[in-house]
């Protein structure tokens, strides 16, 4: 069979108790979150909130206790993510560290790096940005040009990164940089390496990029002779491409790839009761969410078993993005400006604008479908 298999999984035995704990915490922490805050969901950045989450052991949950983790399972972590996303908690200050930077350091970092970074991420005290895309290298990531040159004791970085969401608020990024020049364009995947870069180092300029919504969360980082010591190289010099590909499996695998707009559905439920045709539409949306959830859980289960389900993750992200993009528009049909509460309308308006980005961030729809086509043996 040409397609991909997604075996059904169950959430772990302790899930109901964990859920109850999370819900109690989120009800209290979120009592003053405006619909706008909830609409930001995992793009929302709130260090105080992240520290509270860290205090309860819900960041880096699966990591060894020696590095500040809780040694819980990937599926327990999944339950935690679901609860956070369902209410649109502003998890952005710890999301990237928990999801991909921490796991990367745990897998490939030196002992020194693990001890230095992981406990701080787990406490919610260290925010990470993603350092992959560049102005001329997005989907064709391997063509990136920002370079790190070897100098005594370390590396000197020059170039630019974009789509570094919230980098102006973050502490560190893991940057994918060219450490050997491209000699043959067919071998552009070689000669890349990953580095831990302190976002406040001298030579770094972070310039905001105003987006369509009128926000500046997205920005551009310029590196001008930035020095990082040897100890900041992550994994192997020259193996950056393979490392980053594995990192993307983490980046694409989570429930945030179909749940970004779910808080709108929750917020709108009461209002939707007034529309006779709404229950069927809501039923369909929930049924689809149920299927996507099973697929997403299947990917989490594979991660738990130590696999790298990059293709499965791409498929779930693609299907999930379609879903989370369609949801605000589907619900809009039932809203009535004279009846629907203004905060629900505001949330809907905001999501309609940002929903475009759901199928860009973390890999575009076209790139993901290319990955699936490769699985089908067409490429």
């Amino acid at each position: 069979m040409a397609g991909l298999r997604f075996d059904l999984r169950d959430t772990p035995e302790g899930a109901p108790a964990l859920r109850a704990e999370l819900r109690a915490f989120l009800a209290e922490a979120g009592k003053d979150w405006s619909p706008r805050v909830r609409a930001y969901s995992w793009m929302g950045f709130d260090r105080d909130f992240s520290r509270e989450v860290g205090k309860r052991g819900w960041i880096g949950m699966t990591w060894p206790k020696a590095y500040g983790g809780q040694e819980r399972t990937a599926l327990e972590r999944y339950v935690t993510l679901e609860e956070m996303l369902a209410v649109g908690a502003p998890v952005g200050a710890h999301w990237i560290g928990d999801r991909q930077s921490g796991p990367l350091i745990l897998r490939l970092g030196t002992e020194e790096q693990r001890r230095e970074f992981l406990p701080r991420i787990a406490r919610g005290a260290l925010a990470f940005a993603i350092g992959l895309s560049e102005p001329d290298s997005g989907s064709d990531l391997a063509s990136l040009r920002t370079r790190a040159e070897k100098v005594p004791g370390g590396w000197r970085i020059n170039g630019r990164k974009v789509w570094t969401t919230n980098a102006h608020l973050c502490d560190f990024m893991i940057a994918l940089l060219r450490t050997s020049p491209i000699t043959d364009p067919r071998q552009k995947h070689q000669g890349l390496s990953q580095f831990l870069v302190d976002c406040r180092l001298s030579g770094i300029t972070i310039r905001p990029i105003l987006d369509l919504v009128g926000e500046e969360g997205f920005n551009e980082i310029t590196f001008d002779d930035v020095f990082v010591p040897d100890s900041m190289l992550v994994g192997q010099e020259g193996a950056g491409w393979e490392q980053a590909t594995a990192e993307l499996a983490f980046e694409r695998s989570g429930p945030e790839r179909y749940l970004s707009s779910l808080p709108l559905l929750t917020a709108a439920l009461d209002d939707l009761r007034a529309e006779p045709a709404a229950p069927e539409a809501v039923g369909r949306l929930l049924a689809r969410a149920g299927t996507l959830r099973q697929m997403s859980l299947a990917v989490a289960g594979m991660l738990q078993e130590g696999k790298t389900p990059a293709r499965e993750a791409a498929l779930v992200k693609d299907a999930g993005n379609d879903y989370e993009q369609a949801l605000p528009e589907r619900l809009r049909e039932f809203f009535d400006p004279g009846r629907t509460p203004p905060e629900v309308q505001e949330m809907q308006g905001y999501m309609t604008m940002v929903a475009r980005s759901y199928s860009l961030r973390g890999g575009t729809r076209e790139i993901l479908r290319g990955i699936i086509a490769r699985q089908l043996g067409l490429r």
Partner: protein
Amino acid sequence: MSDTNEDLRGILLEQVERLLTDRSSPNLLRATERGEWPAALWAEVEALGLPLALVPEAMGGVGLGWADAVAVWQVLGRHAAPLPLAESMAAAALLAAAGITPPAGLIALALPGEATAWGRQAGHVAAVQGGEVTLHAAADLTWQPGRSLIGREPADQAMLGEPLARGRVPAGWGADAGLLAGALLQAAKIAGALEAALDMTVDYAKTRKQFGRPIGGFQAVQQQLAVCAAEVAACGVAAAQAGRAADRRGLAGAEFRDRLGQGGGGRGSRDRCRHHPPGACRHRLHR
């Protein structure tokens, strides 16, 4: 129940897969559409104990659950198996749940308002109306010509008389147990058929050449097939999830109706577009 039956399920699936690979052919499908009963194939599925697979062991069955059934039905769909095995399995399960020991042989499933596939070939007919299940001897019934909703096999309308036995399914099976079972088996078969359609379409895209190269080499085609693969996977997951929910919470707890309706309908037509002789698609399900 089904969760502990993994090994048994695996063996059964392998047997069904092998049997249908060997026996289910375009010629057989055409013959059944002309109204010829596939007696030899039916004898083989009966020899495997499949018709009573969902019936508890105490009533002479194998004791498999709905999730296991979904897996079997998906294989039937993948091979476009030209026999009413899924319906007979569901009929036996419904009878057993209503406290009626299911008879051996083909049990046709009669649902309200629908023609009964292969009813005239059956030994017995199980009619389900709401939560009530009745068992009839097929020979005692009179039949009016009917037409199958989807397939092309013979399907007629039974005029039900006094039943041999009468019972009710447990409340957890819902007020529409027959329709739910029917929806579940159709959902599983659709999911299986979509897998086959995807495989065939991908093969075709790799071999059919236009503009000097396989059409699968064009990004526009690749992207459509990628979407198709995602929907096919989603349909399989939705059907499997529905089977599991039916085992855990009763048939009424199954969650499949919506998803399969969307994925099945839309994607089926998209796949068909890719094969240019549209009428050939159904028969090509037999490789």
